[in-house]
């Protein structure tokens, strides 16, 4: 079988599997977010924590719950990392410096999973399981909880209640993430991903050098790493490591897992707002960007530019021989479009345009399909901007799903779209202005600039993948990127929750033939155009100095 055909078959299988899961999984999510009944175990948990599960919160209270929970998570994780030498299963790894531990704690709590350390060398099994894996679950759940409030903003009328964070969090973990993780972890183990408590094994490589590789509970970590669009690898090599991602099947499975929930959420959205067509329109926009990005990256990587690439038949530098161009490009597009950040190849080695696209994917704001929850709320914010402009053009005060988009709503939507570009550009600008930080680059010229741009784009958009090349485990980068992650995660959440509150307060406007239809191909096209222009215009100068300058020569 030719590699082209294999690539096509993989893509078709992937789309087919996602399409099959769209309805049942989306409906399941909608149900767990709207159901009034509690499981017995949930009731027990609420009693222990002291939560009134039947009382909904106003948006500021919901926000406080999100922030308090995340703050506690950061502190706990930071403590765990710093103290791991004194605890069980520490494996005797060296103590992590404070700035790096802080960066890591932030990184996993914000669903970014940026790693300025090498997984197998810095983390013992306890931190991996009780720290990082737990955050992999709950940070993903927080994203879904926040988007749930935004959807409730559309479905609820004349109320100031947007949901109960503790109930949402518990249900998303217990009814969605845990069951899926258990099932797919078993599949991964059956397919060769390791799952044990071994320590370091001393090996001698083919070249005769000594190497020490730890075993560990990898499969259980791996599954939620993808499913929760987290991306922090057990090993430094992430999904390029054979213990994490042993073969072609697990590779495809991992891509499937990282796309699964983000692509099913539009269905939950459609179901909750009572019009499945709204969900189809959103998923169509997400799908368009994903397909286009995957196809373009594959195209650029399959090009034979340069002597080395010509000899190899394609741009194979930094890619796993096991996976080849198609599976690597598909993984790269999917991981950068979902805020996952897991990698099975090294984006720094991609062709200028291929690598540029991975940056551009993140710059889109992680919306196609984006992170768990965060992807959908990012997309809905852009839909609100699109509806606002288009709604004016049909001669009415713009309204989306019966809710008017007035000054208050546009204020929060505008602040949302302002936040991430500001963090990315200011961060990159400062780094480029400081001679010491520029020295961290591996390459010079446009490519070196792309490395810095990638780092800040990845952190602010909570992706977490690294271009590689750049040395980021310095005091400055750990701090700057940590701040980028915090602000890039929680500021948008503030605006989304405030928007949800503003929408829920309103009385709905009935739809008439004069209402802008938001479920038709015209709207899909319009929304895609707005995304391209709003994002493209903001980042074009920066991209021109990086990948575009490098690619056009």
């Amino acid at each position: 079988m030719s590699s082209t055909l294999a690539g096509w078959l993989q893509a078709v299988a992937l789309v087919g599997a996602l399409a099959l899961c769209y309805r049942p999984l989306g409906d399941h999510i909608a149900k767990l977010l709207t159901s009034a009944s509690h499981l017995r175990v949930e009731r027990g948990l609420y009693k222990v924590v002291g939560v009134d599960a039947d009382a909904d919160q106003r948006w500021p209270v919901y926000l406080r719950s999100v922030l308090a929970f995340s703050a506690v998570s950061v502190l706990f994780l930071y403590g765990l990392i710093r103290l791991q030498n004194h605890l069980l299963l520490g494996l005797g790894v060296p103590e992590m410096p404070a700035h790096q531990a802080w960066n890591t704690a932030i990184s996993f709590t914000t669903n970014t999973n940026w790693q300025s350390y090498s997984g197998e060398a810095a983390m013992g099994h306890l931190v991996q399981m009780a720290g990082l894996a737990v955050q992999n679950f709950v940070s993903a759940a927080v994203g879904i909880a926040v988007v749930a409030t935004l959807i409730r903003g559309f479905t609820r009328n004349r109320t100031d209640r947007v949901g109960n964070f503790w109930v949402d969090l518990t249900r998303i973990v217990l009814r969605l993430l845990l069951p899926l993780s258990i099932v797919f972890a078993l599949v991964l183990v059956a397919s060769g991903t390791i799952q044990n408590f071994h320590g370091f094994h001393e090996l001698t490589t083919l070249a005769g050098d000594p190497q020490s590789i730890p075993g560990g509970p990898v499969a259980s970590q791996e599954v939620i790493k993808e499913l929760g669009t987290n991306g922090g690898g057990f090993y430094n090599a992430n999904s390029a490591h054979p213990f994490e991602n042993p073969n072609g099947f697990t590779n495809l499975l991992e891509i499937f897992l990282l796309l699964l929930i983000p692509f099913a959420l539009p269905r939950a959205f459609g179901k909750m707002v009572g019009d499945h067509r709204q969900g189809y329109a959103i998923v169509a926009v997400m799908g368009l960007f994903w397909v286009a990005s995957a196809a373009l990256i594959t195209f650029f990587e399959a090009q034979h530019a340069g002597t080395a690439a010509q000899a190899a038949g394609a741009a194979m530098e930094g890619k796993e021989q096991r996976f080849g161009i198609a599976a690597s490009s598909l993984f790269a597009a999917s991981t950068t479009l979902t805020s996952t950040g897991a990698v099975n190849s090294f984006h720094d080695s991609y062709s200028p345009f291929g690598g540029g696209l991975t940056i551009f994917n993140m710059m889109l704001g992680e919306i196609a399909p984006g992170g768990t929850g965060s992807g959908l709320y990012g997309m809905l914010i852009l839909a609100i901007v699109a509806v606002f402009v288009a709604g004016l053009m049909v001669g009415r005060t713009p309204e989306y799903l019966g809710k008017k988009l007035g000054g208050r709503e546009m204020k929060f939507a505008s602040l949302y779209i302002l936040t991430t570009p500001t963090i990315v550009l200011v961060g990159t600008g400062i780094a480029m202005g400081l001679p010491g930080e520029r020295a961290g680059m591996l390459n010079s010229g446009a490519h070196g600039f792309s490395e810095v741009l990638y780092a800040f784009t990845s952190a602010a958009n909570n992706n977490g993948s690294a271009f590689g090349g750049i040395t980021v485990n310095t005091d400055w980068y750990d701090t700057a990127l940590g701040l980028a992650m915090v602000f890039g995660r929680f500021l948008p959440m503030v605006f989304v929750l405030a928007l949800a509150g503003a929408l829920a307060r309103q009385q709905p406007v009935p739809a008439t033939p004069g209402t802008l239809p938001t479920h038709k191909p015209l709207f899909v096209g319009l929304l895609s155009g707005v995304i391209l222009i709003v994002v493209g215009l903001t980042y074009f100068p920066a991209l021109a100095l990086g990948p575009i300058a490098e690619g056009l020569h």
Partner: protein
Amino acid sequence: MSSTLTPAPVDQAEAAAPHRVSAGLLDPKLIVASLPDAVKKLDPRVMIKNPVMFVVEVGSVVTTVAAIADPSVFAWSITLWLWLTTIFANLAEAVAEGRGKAQAETLRRTKTDAVARRLVNWPTSQAEEEVSGTALRLGDHVVIEAGQTIPGDGDVVEGVASVDESAITGESAPVIRESGGDRSAVTGGTKVLSDRIVVKISSEPGKTFIDRMIALVEGAARQKTPNEIALNILLASLTIVFLIAVCTLQPMATYAGAPQSMIVLVALVVALIPTTIGALLSAIGIAGMDRLVQRNVLAMSGRAVEAAGDVNTLLLDKTGTITLGNRQAAEFQPANGVTVEELADAAQLSSLADETPEGRSIVVLAKTGYGLRARAQGELTHATWVPFTAQTRMSGVDLDEADGVHQVRKGAAGSVAEWVAANGGTVGTDVTDLVQQISGAGGTPLLVAAKIGSAPARALGVIYLKDVVKEGMKERFDELRRMGIRTVMITGDNPLTARAIAEEAGVDDFLAEATPEDKMALIKKEQAGGKLVAMTGDGTNDAPALAQADVGVAMNTGTMAAKEAGNMVDLDSNPTKLIEIVEIGKQLLITRGALTTFSIANDVAKYFAIIPAMFATVYPGLDKLNIMQLHSPESAITSAIVFNALVIIGLIPLALRGVKYRPSDASSLLRRNIGVYGLGGLVVPFVGIKLIDLVVQFIPGLS
């Protein structure tokens, strides 16, 4: 239903023809006249209210300083065009305001200091004193006689007069104002042409209707509308994003080895921020109000104009809006043994003394349908006329013929039937059946009866009066339906009649036997479902409903209470205009959306002009982005800035007149506007910048 007045004769075709919201004129003289105002508006304290243009002004100052410090042709060209950009934006606003000012000037001329004849102790005494019009207070009574100007707003409390209101309506035909009823309001500055009236003043000096009109058309009372605020927020945030993008570009550019001059950075910011819409936004709003004023509608706030575009339900009074003012005779239906001609003749004879529009329509039908010439009352010397009164509800004639007195009567079926019985006759079942049929079909039956000599009176037949729906209304309602607007007809008729007319006119629903309370309840019900309601009204009892409706258009002929309650006043008192008001509201929003789209789409071309100009020296590959093949970096940047400024001037007429609007459903409107302003916005600047570059490249220093 409260409307009892006969509406001013409106040309039927004109009233009902589907109006397209059409262009207003842009007078080049107005542009020149507005220039000083445009320059005055450069005051930063004024500019800061428009964040987009404020950034441009600050940029202009920065480039001016930079150009002085390091002069070059390029620096000065950019500086000049940046200042022009700011001035053009101010010009747009000044021109829009200028049109209102001209109107205000005309109004002010009517505000002469009329001398008022105040009645000191009315009605107990008729003693008068002469005071200045400005000395009048709320509740004063004044007397005005033919030839005098009414000194202030008020309601007629005694007498009836014809009044020339052309000063405010522009309509030269005089109107009748009388005490009591719904035609009692008079406006200060209008002139009494005949008779004598006593008016109770209802406004404080300086707060009269004309004062408010002047403030409105001058834009003095203008506040940003909710939608304008929302759009401003979006524009401000786009401005901030681009400011950040350019500010952070400098360290990146420095790293790349191509640090940029201040001039170039400012030029890039100005090119990217949405200046087109930012410059025209307030002009669009002012012009929208102005378009209403041109149609003789005064909106008390921009908010009301915007709400008009959002209206879901229109409450339309039947009379005068959907139907012609009055019922008209449509058919003669004779009793058994009577010919149609006999009936027509009797009907005409008996209606000659009936001056009501219904009566006249009977005479006309007899003439047009049966060739019976309308006899003048004087022709029949032997006739005694019985005029129509509201008490007898009959009219007729007694002819002193050779064979005795011929008495002919026509009128409400009940009254005439009583007359027949009183004169010894009976009304046959054939005739009562006809009466019932007509009632059942929603018409009004009038009975015709005659008594010759001493013979018993007998019924000759029935006249079928019916409401005549204005031409073109059905199409108009279909159009509204496509726009997503539901029409509800309000009428005092019984449900049967109402249904028949509703079906004929094609409205979506009707409210029969409507009382003001019913109307109010209907509005509240619609609003509870999240709908916006528009209505017209003129009577005092309409006032609560007018106040409750989201768009309440009061007729100028109506009472002061109604005018106070509504948020718009139609000086022509033409209820059909409500439909136009909705269209103008929509057009206002569409213009904003279209120019926003155009403005944002423009940026793509500007990037392709400026980015290669900035960086092709260090990354020669970027010159491939120079797809317009612009001559030099300096000419490219200059061309982009010149285009940016010129496009504002070019779009001022569009902003003032509004984009073309055809009533249709949302999808087709969107498709059209994205096609024209979205794709147009992408393509036009590529062409425009290239054309400007072809000229600019010959300027020494830019080549």
